[in-house]
């Protein structure tokens, strides 16, 4: 199908204000006579709350409200899957980020002083900070009687038979780190009492509808009395979900308690202390294989650190269990993924959502297998990799175009992989050695069998021919607004300059679920296409009357109504819009898209988990300093099948940004604790990739259009970041002949094979825990 706007490098619809300083992020909003809200956080990672005395704080001049959990009129706990996260802790604190009390005051300084006047008596409890420790019977319990709260499994074939058929077994243990999202914009909201009851919240919220549900439940309000408007969002990466929900609830509580607008902004330290993270995993992989390189059995056990609350752990670990054996043929599979509560930060959604962890293990294992049977990493993957029609570990038959071999071959060719791999492998010892590594993956698109998967987008043509688009799918920088606009423009035959995209407002667009799982383009875009088609049909009807033609003889092209056969221009788009309005016809369309069927059988561990999949491959070339263990990535190839590139600019933005984040995962980033006390709370100690850390990147966009997506488009946000770490790990192995089994591949892990750090005593054995010094929490920016 020929397209005019789709596939073009159209300018982002949200870029101009970001370049002139006019873009308004949440912390840029103020209301007259607003109060400043602050949170008193836990003093211990695990303690019983005996008593909270707020009387002194309440008496401080300038303080307008001091609230604790007992002031919450409705539900005191939130949670999307398991409701166990307190908006304000009342029985226990379970990690250092827990909020215990709230203050609203006329100035920030007074608010902070008031926090210091709140007295909380605690009974410190034993702490558990290691998920494997947490699963032991004598471990301190975080919730109820069991720290184990998720166990997903996949079962296929007969493991005994699989291992019996094997010529050899490879058994390895891997560890992946806890990761901070590191959106550069810290969390912020402004909550205002609404004119006719309820509350209006403007904030840096990713998933507005789930936040709205919790605010309504906490405040005992109908959903229509809680309006959340998304401010231009300064990055999210899955991170501005529950942490924003609790901030919205807290600010709304204060606003309704005082009857005044309340602004809350986290400092970076507060943000890192409180916000949830990407799950650290311990992964035990055991594969049986034959001498020819075929795999007869794959057994995997993963333990995820769920932290203090359930959050999205049940879903994150479900994606892990589905994808834990990668895009490889194997008749006998047994996978178990567990999540355990600890006193660390709770862990939830982060770009990748359960795939970066398992991909590191799978792709490291694949290279170990290649080594064992004397094949090269490309050969072993081409031999074992899925082709169209393959049946996955969960028993799902892949009927779409399975392009794994295509992306692998293209990435390997572009990186000159084989020649370099052979050369580096036999290079003599030297202070600096180079290596090259390959990794690939398949990834289920959108939510899959996690839950209801539907979204709505609205296209509204104005009487002058300009167009307003809005959606329940949100933009956090990834470009969803631009893709949806392009799709609407394509269908309406108009230029992008006609379109304004409105930030999401929960009271004006339909609940479209969360903007997660790389579902923005495929779901929001499909809905945008439907919405535009509804409007197009009306416009063509009016246009046909104007030109005394039938609607199917007309078309909308380059901002004109034209006669299809001759291309003759009958009216400008603006004239057509005016005529449509004059005829009393609706110029408004709500497109609703529901994803194709998926299924899951939790007991059997089988199902058609996702309605389609995407495929990607990365090649990383590194230079390792063999004296210090320092690893530099010097070249990178990223290749992904995106279905159809709606916009090359936004696609490439995802490619490059995903690689940079993946390099951080492989080499730099680790949110580390000692007995559940975070060791880093700002960017001086939590290191993300700078411009100096990102190598030249070759990006290869593969397009195999998929019937499930708008104009054939699929997903790209998360696949781009889930492969760099194993590619780097394999490159290090190629360079120095040793593998890192734990990431990030810091100097000591590369050189010594393990982390250099004091081994904290087992947390449960310790009584006194050093709490985070409150002065480390920053000034509390506004």
């Amino acid at each position, binding site marked *: 199908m020929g397209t005019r706007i789709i596939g073009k*490098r159209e*300018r*982002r619809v*949200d*870029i*101009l*204000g*970001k*370049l*002139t*300083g006019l*873009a*308004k*992020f949440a*912390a*840029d909003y103020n209301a007259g006579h607003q109060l400043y809200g602050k949170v008193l956080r836990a003093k211990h990672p695990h303690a019983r709350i005996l008593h909270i005395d707020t009387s002194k704080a309440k008496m401080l001049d300038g303080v307008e409200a001091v609230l604790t959990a007992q002031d919450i009129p409705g539900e005191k706990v939130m949670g999307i899957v398991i409701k166990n996260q307190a908006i304000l802790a009342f029985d226990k604190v379970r990690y250092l980020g827990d909020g215990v009390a709230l203050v609203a005051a006329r100035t920030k300084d007074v608010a902070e002083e008031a926090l210091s006047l709140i007295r909380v008596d605690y009974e410190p409890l034993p702490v558990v900070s290691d998920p494997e420790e947490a699963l032991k019977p004598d471990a301190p319990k975080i919730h109820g009687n069991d720290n184990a709260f998720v166990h997903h499994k996949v079962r296929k074939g007969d493991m005994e038979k699989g291992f019996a058929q094997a010529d050899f077994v490879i058994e390895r243990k891997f560890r992946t780190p806890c990761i901070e*999202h*590191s*959106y*550069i*914009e*810290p969390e912020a909201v402004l909550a205002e009492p609404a004119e006719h009851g309820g509350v209006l919240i403007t904030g840096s919220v990713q998933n507005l509808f789930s936040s709205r549900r919790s605010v309504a439940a906490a405040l005992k309000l109908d959903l229509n009395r809680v309006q959340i408007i998304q401010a*231009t*969002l*300064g*990055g*999210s*990466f899955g991170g501005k979900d529950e942490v924003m929900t609790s901030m919205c609830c807290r600010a709304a509580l204060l606003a309704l308690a005082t009857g005044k607008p309340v602004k809350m*902004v986290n*400092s*970076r330290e507060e943000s890192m202390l409180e916000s949830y993270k990407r799950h650290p995993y311990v992964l035990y992989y055991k594969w049986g294989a034959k001498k020819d390189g075929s795999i007869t059995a794959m057994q995997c056990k993963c333990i995820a650190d769920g932290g203090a609350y359930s959050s999205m752990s049940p879903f994150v670990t479900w994606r892990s269990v589905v994808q834990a054996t990668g895009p490889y043929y194997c008749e006998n599979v047994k996978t178990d993924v567990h999540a355990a509560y600890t006193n660390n930060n709770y862990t939830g959604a982060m770009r990748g959502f359960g795939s970066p962890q398992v991909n590191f293990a799978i792709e490291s294992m694949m290279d170990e297998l290649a080594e064992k049977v004397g094949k090269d990493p490309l050969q072993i993957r081409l031999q074992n990799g899925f082709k169209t029609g393959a049946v996955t570990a969960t028993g799902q038959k892949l009927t779409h175009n399975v392009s794994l071999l295509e992306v692998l071959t293209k990435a390997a060719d572009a990186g000159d992989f084989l020649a370099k791999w052979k050369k580096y492998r036999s290079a003599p010892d030297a202070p600096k050695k180079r290596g090259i590594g390959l990794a690939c993956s398949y990834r289920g698109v959108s939510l899959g069998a996690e839950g209801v998967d539907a979204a709505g987008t609205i296209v509204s043509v104005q009487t002058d021919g300009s167009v307003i688009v809005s959606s329940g799918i949100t933009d*956090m*920088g*990834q*470009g969803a607004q*631009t893709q949806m606009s392009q799709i609407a423009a394509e269908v309406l035959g108009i230029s992008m300059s006609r379109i304004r995209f409105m930030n999401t407002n929960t009271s004006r667009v339909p609940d479209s679920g969360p903007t997660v799982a790389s579902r923005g383009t495929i779901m929001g875009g499909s809905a945008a296409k439907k919405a535009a088609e509804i409007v197009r049909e009306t416009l063509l009807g009016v246009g046909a009357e104007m030109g005394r033609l039938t609607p199917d003889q007309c078309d909308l092209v380059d901002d004109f109504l034209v006669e299809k056969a001759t291309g003759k221009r009958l009216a400008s788009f603006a004239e057509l819009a005016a005529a449509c309005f004059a005829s009393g016809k609706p110029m408004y369309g709500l497109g609703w898209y529901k994803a194709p069927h998926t299924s899951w059988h939790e007991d059997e561990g089988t199902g058609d988990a996702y309605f389609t999949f995407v495929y990607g491959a990365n090649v990383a070339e590194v230079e390792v300093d063999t004296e210090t263990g320092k690893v530099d990535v010097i070249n990178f190839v990223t290749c992904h099948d995106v279905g159809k590139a709606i916009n090359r*600019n*936004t696609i*490439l*933005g995802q*490619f*490059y*940004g*995903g*690689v*940079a*984040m993946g390099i951080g995962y492989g080499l730099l980033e680790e949110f580390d604790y000692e007995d559940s006390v975070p060791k880093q709370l*700002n*960017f*001086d100690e939590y290191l*993300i*990739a*700078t*411009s*100096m850390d*990102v190598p030249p*990147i070759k990006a290869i966009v593969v397009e195999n259009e998929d019937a499930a997506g708008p104009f054939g488009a699929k997903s790209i946000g998360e696949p781009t970041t889930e492969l760099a770490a194993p590619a780097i790990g394999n490159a290090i192995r190629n360079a120095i002949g040793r593998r890192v089994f734990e990431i990030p591949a810091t100097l000591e892990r590369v050189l010594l094979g393990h982390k250099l750090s004091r081994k904290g005593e087992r947390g449960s054995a310790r009584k006194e825990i050093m709490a985070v010094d409150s002065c480390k929490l*920053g*000034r509390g*920016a506004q």
Partner: protein
Amino acid sequence: MNKQITLTINGEARAVEVGPTDILLDVLREKLGIKSPKIGCERGDCGACTVLLDGKSVRSCLILAIEADGHKITTLEGLSRNGLTPLQESFLKHSSFQCGFCAPGIVLSATELLAKHPHPSEEEIKESISGNLCRCTGYKPIIEAIAAVSNARRKSV
């Protein structure tokens, strides 16, 4: 004790009363309504608060407002008072930014670079923005847009 200071902000003289420990970033955002410098880390690590002080890029979170007394400050708001600069145009064309929270800082860092070195090497470009953290873009679309300005200048000479 509070003190009245005078700043030339984006070409306009502004008098403002500040306390001895007031941070320039807070004075810009809260007292002068200039919101483009962003608060990201408050310790000079992320670069989101970058402004130009007499043409030199500084972290406004690390500078006391009184230190800026009598000096010229340029923020993102001031760059485009006479239309977008070629650098802004280039960022626009390349759609270099995603969430855009780092943009105010990066645009100013790159503005300083191009003022000093009209034709920087790629290494110089990378170094000029190495103090500005961006979590979205992988920096490449930003670097390409800066290089494109330099290349366009070369062609027009």
